[in-house]
């Protein structure tokens, strides 16, 4: 296997793992629902994107032709994550999930 | 390979699909097509009965895949008997249904035909997992049918029925998994070959799997302590559905006969006669419970529903002997009880229609219209169900009594069955005398009209108990041949070596 590809794969994997973990830490650690909402919508999405990309490179460099189907997963996640976040935020505002004390500004009445 | 074998499956399937398309077609068209389907099915069943009577096993390999790899249908006398029994019952239930019961939902005929589809698959299939699928087909259709009709009374019993059967299906799958995990096969003939060869260390798994199958079949058959879903469900179903359901417990019984003579029968080595020592006492307790239920029944439908449980106990007691005599007696009884109980459900419904708010409750009410006709039907049904002469029930009971051989079997079976008959007789005479004879002043506002489709179907089913007496000779001969064929399992396993299409020379 091409060493550059190997480096790229390893790097992308680690980046992916890192962001996935960071997203999860954020989800676990951040103080209220609205702050926690940030973790998955981007860090995790980015993390998965990187892992998927490493998969693309991995299988392409194995010499079985270029496989790019994985990219669709990332595209799909990028398209849907904001919508999920949006509708979850609306749900939280509807229920009246409290914001952490340090939050300025107000949620909207649903 | 004889394509007739698929007829009992393809006919209701096509009929059912047509009904799914025709939800909004005029009811007359739907009825005509539906009845035509059922009639065709009966014709096919009779053809198969004639075919099967030569005593051979006919094989139909779907996809032309050799068993044990593909799914096969196997036609033998037992399968043919069950098919005809079902088709006859179904035809009359269907005729009854077009008397008006089918109007409350557009899906009725579709569900009805799919129900028959499931039943027929169950009787014909030679594959254990496919039997599961067949069960599911007939169950899901039965769920739909059970919920058919106006009113709210059937919802809760229906829910119980569905939930218990779902749990039962789960157990079925577990059992299939256990048996497959040891034998590596699903074909019943192949299982019959493989089970005797199971290694010592694997026996517990197969044994537990087999016993779980017995529980599942017992649940369908409504054997104690798994029978309590039945009275509520059956007595709340609309009449043609309840009548058709007379055959539902028989599927469980069929499965017990098939699986526990073929796979766990006498040739099964260590596992021969698995569970049969449990079955006999349970059957007798079931019978007793049925009698108690019948004695305490507050309505005709409940009474008949408990009669179903009585017959299940009776049947399984005979089957548990594992002998040709026992099985053949059970088969004769099976025909009798299925048709008669079906007929009694219809009669109960007709009575209900004549009694206004008293419905079919065993209480005093104004004198009913059409009393002579209905009371004669009820009387005949009761006589056949209790097993009094001169109707077929007596001969069936006699065969069952005679099938007991050992002294303790004789003592237990005879005393429970005969004392049970005595109390059943009391239950029926009490119910009939109150419902038909004990009248109060007044009259019923609008009694249901006894249209030909209602009265003909009910009386036809009941009258089968006379036909069975007239044909008792040939029928008992057929039952005996069937039992003999069943207990000669080596002939069944020969289907594994039958050539496929394109192979036979």
């Amino acid at each position: 296997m091409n060493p550059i590809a190997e480096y790229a794969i390893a790097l992308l994997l680690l980046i992916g793992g890192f962001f996935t973990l960071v997203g999860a830490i954020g989800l676990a650690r951040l103080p209220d629902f609205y702050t926690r909402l940030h973790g998955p919508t981007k860090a995790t999405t980015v993390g998965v994107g990187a892992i998927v990309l490493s998969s693309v490179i991995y299988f392409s460099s194995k010499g079985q032709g270029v496989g790019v189907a994985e990219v669709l997963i990332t595209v799909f996640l990028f398209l849907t994550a904001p919508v999920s976040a949006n509708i979850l935020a609306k749900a939280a505002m509807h229920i009246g999930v409290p914001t952490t004390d340090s939050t300025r500004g107000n949620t909207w009445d649903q | 390979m004889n394509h007739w074998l698929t007829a009992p499956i393809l006919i209701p399937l096509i009929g059912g699909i047509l009904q799914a398309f025709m939800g909004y077609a005029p009811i007359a068209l739907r009825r005509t097509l539906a009845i035509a389907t059922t009639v065709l099915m009966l014709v096919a069943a009779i053809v198969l009965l004639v075919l099967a009577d030569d005593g051979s096993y006919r094989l139909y390999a779907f996809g032309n895949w050799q068993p044990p790899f593909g799914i096969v249908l196997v036609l033998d006398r037992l399968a043919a008997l069950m098919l005809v029994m079902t088709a006859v019952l179904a035809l009359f239930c269907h005729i009854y249904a077009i008397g008006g019961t089918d109007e409350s939902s557009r899906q009725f005929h579709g569900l009805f035909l799919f129900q028959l589809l499931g039943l027929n698959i169950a009787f014909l299939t030679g594959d254990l997992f496919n039997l599961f699928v067949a069960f599911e087909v007939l169950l899901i259709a039965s769920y739909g049918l059970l919920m058919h009709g106006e009113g709210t009374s059937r919802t809760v019993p229906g829910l119980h029925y569905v939930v218990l059967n779902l749990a039962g299906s789960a157990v079925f799958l577990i059992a299939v998994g256990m048996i497959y995990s040891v034998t590596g096969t699903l074909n019943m003939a192949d299982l019959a070959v493989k089970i005797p060869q199971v290694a010592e260390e694997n026996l517990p798994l197969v044994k537990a799997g087999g016993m779980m199958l017995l529980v599942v079949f017992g649940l369908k058959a409504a054997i104690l302590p798994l029978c309590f879903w039945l009275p509520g469900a059956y007595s709340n179903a609309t009449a043609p559905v309840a009548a058709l359901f007379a055959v539902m417990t028989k599927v469980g019984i069929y499965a017990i006969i098939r699986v526990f003579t073929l796979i766990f029968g006498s040739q099964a080595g260590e596992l021969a006669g698995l569970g049969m020592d449990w079955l006999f006492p349970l059957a007798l307790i079931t019978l007793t419970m049925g009698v108690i239920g019948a004695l305490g029944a507050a309505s005709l439908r409940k009474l008949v529903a408990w009669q179903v449980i009585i017959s299940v106990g009776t049947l399984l007691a005979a089957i548990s002997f594992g002998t040709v005599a026992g099985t053949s007696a059970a088969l004769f009884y099976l025909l009798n009880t299925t048709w008669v109980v079906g007929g009694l459900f219809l009669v109960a419904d007709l009575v209900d229609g004549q009694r206004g708010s008293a419905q079919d409750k065993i209480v005093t009410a104004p004198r009913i219209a059409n009393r002579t006709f209905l009371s004669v039907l009820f009387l005949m049904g009761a006589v056949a169900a209790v097993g009094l002469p001169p109707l077929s029930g007596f001969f069936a009971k006699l065969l069952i009594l005679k099938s007991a051989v050992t002294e303790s079997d004789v003592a237990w079976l005879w005393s429970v069955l005969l004392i049970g008959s005595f109390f059943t007789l009391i239950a029926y005479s009490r119910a009939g005398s109150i419902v038909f004879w004990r009248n109060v002043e007044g009259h019923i506002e609008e009694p249901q009209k006894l249209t030909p489709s209602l009265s003909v179907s009910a009386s036809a089913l009941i009258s089968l108990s006379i036909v069975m007496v007239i044909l008792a000779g040939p029928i008992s001969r057929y039952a005996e041949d069937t039992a003999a064929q069943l207990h000669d399992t080596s002939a069944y396993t020969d289907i594994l070596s039958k050539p496929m299409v394109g192979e036979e020379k």
Partner: protein
Amino acid sequence: MSLPLVVLLPFLGALAAPLFAQGGRTAIAVISCVPAIIGLAALYPHWAVLADGGIVQHTTEWLPALGLSLSFRLDGLSLLFTLLILIIGLLIILYARYYLKPHENVGKFYALLLCFKGSMLGIVLSSNLLLMVIFWELTSLTSFLLISFWTHKKDARRGARMSLAITGGGGLALLAGILLIGNIVGSYELEDVLAAGDLIKNHSMYPVALTLVLLGAFTKSAQFPFHFWLPHAMQAPTPVSAYLHSATMVKAGIFLMARLYPALAGTEQWFYMVSFTGMATLLIGAYVAMFKHDLKGLLAHSTVSHLGLITLLFGMGTQLAAVAAVFHVINHAIFKASLFMAAGIIDHETGTRDMRRINGLWRYMPHTATLAMVAASSMAGVPLLNGFLSKEMFFAEALELNLPGLWAYLPPLVATLAGIFAVAYSARFIHDVFFNGRPVNLPIFPPHEPPRYMKIPVEILVFACLMVGMFPAFSVGPLLYAAASATLGGDVPEYHLTVIHGFNLPLLMSFVAFFGGLLMYTQRQRFFDFHARFKEIDEKAVFEAIVSRISDTAHTVTAYIENGSLQRYAMLLIVSVIAVSVLPLWDLGIAIGSNGLSPVDWPTLIGIAILVVASLGTAAMHRDRFFALVLLSVVGLLVALGFARFSAPDLAMTQLSVEVVTIVLLMLALYYMPSWTPIETPKGRRIRDILIAGAAGIGMTLITLAMLTQPFTSISEFFLENSKPGGGGTNVVNVILVDFRGFDTLGEITVLGIAALGIYAMLRNVDLPPPPGDGQGHAWTRDAYPMMLQQIARPMLPLALMISAYIFLRGHNMPGGGFIAGLITAVALILQYIASGMSWTQGRISIRYHNVIGLGLLFALIAGAGSFAFGYPFLTSTFDYVYWPVVGKFEVASALVFDLGVYLTVIGATLLALTSVGRLSPHSAINSTNYKEGS
């Protein structure tokens, strides 16, 4: 051939009689006579054979498996009974013609009467014991219907049911007894059984068989303690009582004892059981008869008493006693039938049967009175009448009985005492009815003689009383001889049929009885006063109370066991499964099979830990329903991951898609339900359930562990080898689904389709009030269809269709297939419903989901049936490789059409189910205004 005909004719008559109902009573009566007349004519030619002790036999095979044949036998005994049944039957028919009122259901009456007669003839003529049992039970049934003929009378219904219960129940015992005898002898044919007397009596089961048979006989013949049904059977119209109480029903038990006498009698058991029962019945019947104010009640109890007498005679076991028994059968039939008819006439003419009101009828109906007095005298045993003769024989036999010690005095004492009572009640019948002052308050007054023809039957019978009483040898001698000889199996003892045997001890007993009886009657008031101290028991009421009690108890027991609780039923099911698996699993222990455990990797372990936590958590947190739902989703997701982890990509995809649809459906339902499950009250119930669940879980763990570690081989090698060459696909799972086991899949999609149709049907016309807000009390948001969701949902549909197409097309060779593709399409459509609502989405779908389901099933069916054209079985698939320019080589498989059917069915079923639920929502009817096209 004549024997079956004799039995069959009454049944044919029963079918014919109602047809003549238009012609009135006379027409029916005439028609009803025909069977008996033809029967008598048919029997006549056989007399010569029978008189010599010969037998006429007719046998037709019927059900050899049961040992049941249509065999009939005419010998002296059966001839005697046949004649009684036919002749008295004829008289009854004639009598009933006048007895019944024109408005009554005469057709039914005669039909039932003829059925009953046929059944009786069947009993006495059957030569196969099983056949006899059949007729035996038929008499129970027909007599039940006859007794309850006046169904509007409570007493008639109760009396009928009681008699059915007693005699029908006895019939069941008889059946068991006969079956036992059959087992012993190896045949049910009478000649075999009668010839095997010693075999039977020496068999270990003899006492059981004897008891059972006698139970049958005693119940039918109203022996103590089963005697009580008989008096209540008089609720029947009098012709019926006359028939039942004299010649037929009650004589069936007697006949049975006579019939089986050679096979069963002559043992100690027989002696004690039969004679003591007879003695008790004799006394009790006679005693009670004395105190009945009801004319028919008196006669009924007298019948009981006389039946006891006959039974006692049979029980004595001597040949002479048997002869006497047979003789008394004849005599009793004659005088009792006439007495009942007379009583019926009195009832008919006065409107009552109460002897306290009926007095001095001699003045009004002397002719009837004369007849009744003669018959009653015969009943009392007055010389020159037939009753006297057999009673003398009875007294003689009672003296002959060799019982040890003081017991030897018992039979003569009982006999004499019973004789005294008999005279007393007979005297009462005569004096209290025809003399004793003037009538009191008769409903019909003044009474007068009945129609001429109504008296003819009585006259004939009374004439017979006289004839037999004065010229016994001439009148009944040959018949009695033939009957006795048949009963005893050939050798008949010396006996003399003369009117007076000289002055002997029996005659003295008769004198004692006669004068004692008269004395008792004159002192009757004392006896009545004495008797009045005991409370009269109405057996019907007792019976009714017992039946109600049984029924109530049964109801309570049933309601207790079948208590309508799903929890109990489910618990029973689960416990049953556990119970039947415990023993095998006990053998198994904690078995790790010979394959041993494979190494673990910790990511999988953590996944498994999460799965376990989530599943147990669902159970633990189930009260918060939404939380439980989320946890269930976690379980579902991890199960899918598990499938992927262990090499099942198809399963992983299926599980994932099914999972989300299930969750959506559950939420659709949860909307209408409380969002919290209340705590269940009984804590013990929860602990019990935890134990059961724990046992089930541990059991499954052990089973799985044992299973996974055992080596095994399966038929799957075949699938792996033939998938590509035989099925044309490399995805073996898919090839199994659409080809090797395509029939399963056909069933599976059928289930799916039916479920959806059933769901649709079930929810029609259902009205569920939607909750105004969620469980916390928040009102629902205004915004039903968020804009961003709508924006993303639109492109999702074509994209998902694209992915579906991809998954579908590659399914035969790669993970995927029609089912998963169908679910993706369905989910994409569901997203449209979620994002834009029912009416918006429905408005853009032009096909009904019912039809999609139908179409799907049809595709699958057509794909399967295509092979018929080539002579191959249903569902035989075919495939080929095609080369097209640009496209290149590609595969065309018929299985793809089948899979298309799967695809369509899945879409149709899923959406029909979900939209059926969605339609419940009140918003679904309102057109969505939130979203405007192109704005």
